[in-house]
C-alpha cells in the first residue's frame, strides 16, 4: 500500500482551499453581464391563482423582467418528474400529479414558486418579487399524512384521488399472517419517523447562462449529480438537447441527498436566461432552504414482530404511511419502497416479511431521500421493536438480537435483498466491549445516586449502498442505470488525471480517489488530480448519493486502472525486452520481477506519447475508460450503543457515551471514514433529540423556518464518539468496499431512543425526544 495508498490516514487534499476560503461555489461564479433573480413564492399552503399583476414589479428600478408559469408553458418547458415508477398492488400505476417549475392554476405548499424576477441586483430583484401581486384564492390545506388520507381531506392533485399516490406491497401477506396467528409472542408498535430539513451548509444556487450566438446553455448549480441534471433537463424538461447544455457542479457545500434532485430553480434560471438574454443567477436564502429544499423521512408506521417460543423471529409485518409533500421529487417514490421495505429484515434471519406502503400528497415541501433514504426509517422501526420485544420477553436486548442474527452468507431475505457478506456478531461484540456493556448496571446505580436516570440502548443496523445493478433496479422501476464511469488519463510526463462521474461535496474524493491510484501505481497523490462535476469534462456519470462513490465510483476507477496497467506493462515489457507477465508496478517504477531492470513510470508514459518505440500495432497514448456496474448492492452493517442520562426535573437528555462499531469492508482512508461516522451520528442524534420539522396544521405555514425554531445539533449536544470497525469484504466490487456515508445517520436514532426509553421506563416516546417530550413521558 505505501504511505499514501489504501488504508493510509492522510489529510485531505481539498481542505486547504475549503478552510482558507478559497473554495469556488456556484455563488462565486461571475459571468459578464450577469443579473440576479428572486422567486415569487406562495405564502399559502394551498390556493388558486386567479391572476398575476406584474406592473408594479416591472416598474421597480433595475427589474429586467418578471416571468411566470404561463410563459414557461408557452415555451414548452416540461414538468418535473419522479424518476422511479412504482406500481400499486392492484396493478395500477402511481398517481403522479403535475409539477410545473412555476406554478400555474394552483399553488400547493408554502414556498411553491410562482414567478421569477430578474434584475440588475439581488436587492432590486427582491424588491420586484415583493411587488408582484398574485391574486390567490385560498383553499383548505392539509400537512399531516394521516389527515391527508382521511375522508374529506382537501384534494391536492386532480389525478390522485384521496391524495393517495400508490398503495404498494412487498412480501407475502398470507404466510406472514399465518406466522402471526401461530406466534408465541407478538411485539406491536406504532412508530413515527420525524420529518427533517436537510440544512446543507451551502444553500442551493443556480446560474443559468444562455449564449444566443452559439445557441448553447451553461448551468452552474449545487448538484450532487450534474450529469443526471443534464440528462433530465434535456430529456424531460426540454431546456436544451444534451449537446447544447453544459452542467457544472463546482465546489458544493454539503448535500445529504437534498442536492440530488433537479429543482424548479435551475430549470427556470436557464429558461429565464434565454428569455431575457442575460445570465441569471439565483442563490437561495436560508429561509428558502428551509421551505423549498426536499425534506426527509416523515413516515407513520405500525410494526408487528412475531416470535416463537424460543424467541426466534417468525415474521415481520409493517404498514407505513409516507408523506411525499406537494409534489413527487426525483427519487421520492423509491425512498419509502425499494430503499426501505427491502431492508426490513434487518440483521435477522426472518422467513416471512410483508410490508404495505401508502404514499400521500400533502401541502408541504416535497419529501425525498435524505442521508440514509429509507434505510433509517427501516432501521428505526426494526431496532425499536427489537428492543421493545426484549423488554417484553424479559431477555437481554443484545442476546435477543444475537439469537436472531443471520450468520451465513450469502443470505437471501424475503424482501429482495441478498446480503453478500457480514459478521453481525463481530460488530455486536466489538460495540459491547467498547461500551463496557456488562458494567452498565453499576453506572446506572451511580447515576441514580445523583438523581439522574441512566439508560442504555442498542441498534444493530444494516443498510444497502451502491444501488445496483442497473438491470435489477431497472426491473424495479428505476428510470436510470446505476453504474459509474471513470477515465484515467496518464499524461506524457506520467502525472495522472482521473475523471469520475461521482461528485464530491464534502466526501473527500480528491484524496481517497487519489489514494487508490497511489496504491495501484506507487505514485504520490500529488501527481494525481481528480476531475469531477462538469459535463464538458466527464462524459457521463450517475453522481454521488447512497454511499455509492466508493463502492461504485472507485470500482470504475479500479477497472480503468487495470486497463492502464495492462497497457503500461506492455510498453515496459517492450522497452525492457522482458515478458509482459514479468512486469510489476511498484514505487513509481515498472520492474522486471527478479531482475534489477526498471523503467520509471514517467519514461513509460513519455514513450506512450512519443510513440517512437511502441510494441507492434499499439496505438499511442495512455488513457483508459471504464463503466462499472456492480453485481449487487453492498451491505454496510454494524452495532451502535448509546448511553444517556436524563434529568427527571427538566427532561434534558445528556448523551454520555456513543459507541459505533461498523463493518464498511475495505477502508481507503480511516480518518475520512471516522469523519463520516462522526457526521452521520451527529445527524442521527440530531434527529433523535433535536430536529423536527413542524407545519401549522391549520394554516399550513412552516413553523420551523429558521434556526430560531429548527434545532440543529451543535458541538455541545454531542458526545465524543467511539468509532471502530470490523471487516468483511464485499464480494460485489473489486475493492471489497461497502460505503460509509450514511451508516451513522441510519444506525444512531434507535440507539438513542432505546437508551432514553430504558432510562425513563416509558416506551411511548417520539422523535425528537426534546426535553419537553421526555419530561412529559416521565410525568405522563
Amino acid at each position, binding site marked *: 500500500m505505501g504511505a499514501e495508498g489504501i488504508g493510509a490516514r492522510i489529510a485531505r487534499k481539498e481542505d486547504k482551499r475549503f478552510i482558507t476560503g478559497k473554495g469556488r461555489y456556484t455563488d462565486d461564479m461571475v459571468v459578464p453581464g450577469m443579473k440576479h433573480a428572486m422567486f415569487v413564492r406562495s405564502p399559502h399552503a394551498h390556493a388558486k391563482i386567479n391572476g398575476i399583476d406584474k406592473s408594479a414589479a416591472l416598474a421597480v428600478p433595475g427589474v429586467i423582467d418578471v416571468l411566470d408559469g404561463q410563459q414557461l408553458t408557452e415555451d414548452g418547458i416540461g414538468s418535473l418528474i419522479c424518476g422511479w415508477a412504482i406500481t400499486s398492488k392492484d396493478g395500477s400505476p402511481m398517481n403522479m400529479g403535475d409539477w410545473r417549475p412555476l406554478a400555474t392554476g394552483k399553488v400547493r405548499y408554502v414556498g411553491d414558486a410562482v414567478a421569477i424576477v430578474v434584475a440588475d441586483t439581488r436587492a432590486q430583484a*427582491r424588491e420586484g418579487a*415583493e411587488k408582484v401581486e398574485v391574486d390567490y384564492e385560498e383553499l383548505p390545506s392539509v400537512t399531516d399524512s394521516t389527515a391527508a388520507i382521511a375522508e374529506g381531506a382537501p384534494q391536492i392533485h386532480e389525478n390522485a384521488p384521496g391524495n393517495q399516490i400508490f398503495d404498494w406491497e412487498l412480501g407475502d401477506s398470507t404466510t406472514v399472517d399465518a406466522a402471526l396467528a401461530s406466534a408465541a409472542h407478538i411485539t406491536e408498535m406504532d412508530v413515527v419517523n420525524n420529518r427533517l430539513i436537510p440544512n446543507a451548509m451551502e444553500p442551493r444556487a443556480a446560474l443559468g447562462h444562455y449564449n444566443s450566438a452559439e445557441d448553447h446553455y451553461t448551468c452552474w448549480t449545487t448538484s450532487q449529480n450534474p450529469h443526471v441534471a443534464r440528462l433530465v433537463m434535456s430529456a424531460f424538461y426540454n431546456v436544451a438537447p444534451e449537446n447544447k447544455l453544459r452542467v457544472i457542479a463546482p465546489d458544493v457545500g454539503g448535500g445529504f441527498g437534498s442536492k440530488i434532485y433537479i429543482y424548479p430553480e435551475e430549470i427556470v434560471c436557464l429558461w429565464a436566461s434565454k428569455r431575457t438574454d442575460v445570465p441569471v443567477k439565483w442563490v437561495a436564502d436560508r429561509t428558502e432552504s428551509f421551505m423549498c429544499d426536499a425534506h426527509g423521512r416523515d413516515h407513520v408506521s405500525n410494526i408487528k414482530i412475531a416470535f416463537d417460543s424460543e424467541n426466534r423471529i417468525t415474521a415481520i409485518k409493517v404498514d407505513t404511511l409516507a408523506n411525499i409533500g406537494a409534489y413527487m421529487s426525483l427519487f421520492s417514490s423509491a425512498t419509502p419502497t425499494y430503499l426501505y421495505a427491502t431492508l426490513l429484515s434487518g440483521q435477522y434471519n426472518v422467513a416471512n416479511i410483508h410490508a404495505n406502503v401508502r404514499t400521500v400528497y400533502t401541502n408541504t415541501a416535497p419529501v425525498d431521500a435524505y442521508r440514509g433514504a429509507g434505510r433509517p426509517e427501516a432501521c428505526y422501526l426494526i431496532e425499536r421493536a427489537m428492543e421493545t420485544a426484549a423488554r417484553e420477553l424479559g431477555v437481554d436486548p443484545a442476546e435477543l438480537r444475537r439469537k436472531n442474527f443471520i450468520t451465513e452468507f450469502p443470505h437471501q431475505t424475503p424482501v429482495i435483498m441478498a446480503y453478500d457478506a457480514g459478521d453481525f456478531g463481530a460488530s455486536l461484540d466489538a460495540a459491547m466491549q467498547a461500551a463496557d456493556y456488562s458494567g452498565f448496571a453499576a453506572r446506572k446505580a451511580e447515576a441514580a445516586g445523583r438523581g439522574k436516570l441512566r439508560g442504555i440502548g442498542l441498534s444493530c443496523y444494516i443498510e444497502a449502498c451502491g444501488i445496483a445493478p442497473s438491470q435489477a433496479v431497472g426491473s424495479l422501476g428505476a428510470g436510470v442505470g446505476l453504474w459509474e464511469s471513470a477515465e484515467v488519463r496518464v499524461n506524457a510526463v506520467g502525472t495522472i488525471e482521473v475523471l469520475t462521474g461521482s461528485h464530491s461535496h464534502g466526501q473527500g474524493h480528491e484524496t481517497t480517489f487519489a489514494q487508490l491510484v497511489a496504491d495501484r501505481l506507487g505514485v504520490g497523490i500529488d501527481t494525481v488530480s481528480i476531475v469531477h462535476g462538469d459535463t464538458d469534462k466527464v462524459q457521463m456519470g450517475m453522481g454521488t448519493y447512497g454511499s455509492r462513490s466508493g463502492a461504485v465510483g472507485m470500482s470504475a476507477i479500479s477497472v480503468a486502472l487495470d486497463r492502464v496497467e495492462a497497457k503500461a506493462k506492455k510498453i515496459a515489457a517492450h522497452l525492457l525486452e522482458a515478458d509482459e507477465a514479468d512486469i510489476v508496478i511498484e514505487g513509481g517504477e515498472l520492474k522486471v520481477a527478479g531482475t534489477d531492470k526498471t523503467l520509471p513510470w514517467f519514461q513509460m508514459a513519455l514513450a506512450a506519447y512519443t510513440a517512437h518505440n511502441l510494441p507492434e500495432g499499439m496505438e499511442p497514448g495512455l488513457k483508459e475508460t471504464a463503466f462499472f456496474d456492480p453485481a449487487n448492492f453492498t451491505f454496510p452493517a454494524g452495532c451502535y450503543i448509546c448511553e444517556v442520562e436524563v434529568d427527571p*426535573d*427538566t*427532561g434534558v437528555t445528556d448523551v454520555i457515551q456513543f459507541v459505533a462499531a461498523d463493518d464498511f469492508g475495505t477502508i481507503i482512508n480511516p480518518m475520512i471514514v471516522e469523519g463520516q461516522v462522526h457526521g452521520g451520528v451527529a445527524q442521527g442524534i440530531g434527529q433523535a433529540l*433535536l430536529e423536527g420539522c*413542524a407545519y401549522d396544521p391549520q394554516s399550513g405555514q412552516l*413553523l*420551523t423556518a429558521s*434556526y*430560531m*425554531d*429548527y*434545532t*440543529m445539533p451543535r458541538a455541545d449536544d454531542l458526545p465524543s464518539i467511539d468509532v471502530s470497525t470490523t471487516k468483511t469484504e464485499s464480494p460485489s466490487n473489486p475493492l471489497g468496499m461497502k460505503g460509509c456515508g450514511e451508516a451513522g445517520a441510519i444506525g444512531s436514532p434507535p440507539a438513542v431512543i432505546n437508551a432514553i426509553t430504558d432510562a425513563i421506563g416509558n416506551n411511548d416516546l417520539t422523535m425528537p425526544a*426534546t*426535553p*419537553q417530550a421526555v*419530561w*412529559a413521558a416521565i410525568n405522563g
Partner: protein
Amino acid sequence: MYKTNYHRASSVEEAASLIAGADDGKLLAGGQTLIPTMKQRLAAPSDVVDLRHIADLKGISVAGSQVTIGAGTTHADVANSAEIRSACPALADLASHIGDPHVRNMGTIGGSIANNDPAADYPAAMVALGATIHTNSREISADDFFVGMFETALNDGEIITAVSFNAPEKAAYQKFPNPASRYAMTGVFVAKGAGGVRVGVTGAGSDGVFRATDMEAALGANFSGGALDATSVDSSGMLSDLHGSSDYRANLVKVMARRAVEAAG
C-alpha cells in the same frame, strides 16, 4: 433590508433631537435584534439613530453597594467587569451566557431592556434586583418599566441612559435555554437583599418578565430550595409553543428557581 437613513449621534441630547425629528425612527443600541429584523425586512424604520458612539452611555461604576451600568455597556463588558463580578457575580454570569460572543460584544444592556423580548435574560435580573431604569427624562423602577411582551414604560423617543441597583447579599440566575434559539425558555433570577427576596422570571410568562411573588414570600421566610416545594406555578399564565407547553414551562420555573436558590448559596 429596506432603505433607511443612518444617523450617528454623539450625545444623548443629539440622539433625542434626531429621533424626535425622524418620521418613523428607531434607536440603535447594539443592534442585535434591530439589525437582523431589518435584514429580514420585518422592520423598515425611516431613520436609524446610532447610540453606539455616545461615551456618556458606556461604563460601569460601583459606589459602596450602589451599582450603575451605562445603557450602552455591552454584555461582554458586564460579564468581564471586575466590579460587577465582585458586587453582583450573578449579573456577570447572566451576561456571560447571553447569545454568542458576537452578540455579547455588540449587544447592550440598554438595548436589551428597551426591547423587552419575553425571552431576554436582563429583564429577569432588573426585576429581581429591584433596579432603577434611568432615562434622559426620568427614573423608572423595574417593576413599572416592563409592561408586557416587547412593551415598556418608555415614551416615544425616550432614551435609556443607565440602570442602577443595590448589590444584593446573594443572587443567582439559572437559565433553561430554548434548544433551537438558546434564548431563555425559562430564566429565573433570585436575589436576596436589604428589601427581602425578589424572584424575576423571564422566558416563561405569556406577558413577558414577571415576579414570582409566592416564591418570594416562601424564600423570604426560608431562603432554601426546599422552601419552594410548597409553592406552585400556575401554568395558565405561561407561554406555550413548539418547544414548551405551559405545563412544561411552569415546571421549569420551579426547577430553575430552586437551582438558582441553591446556586446563590
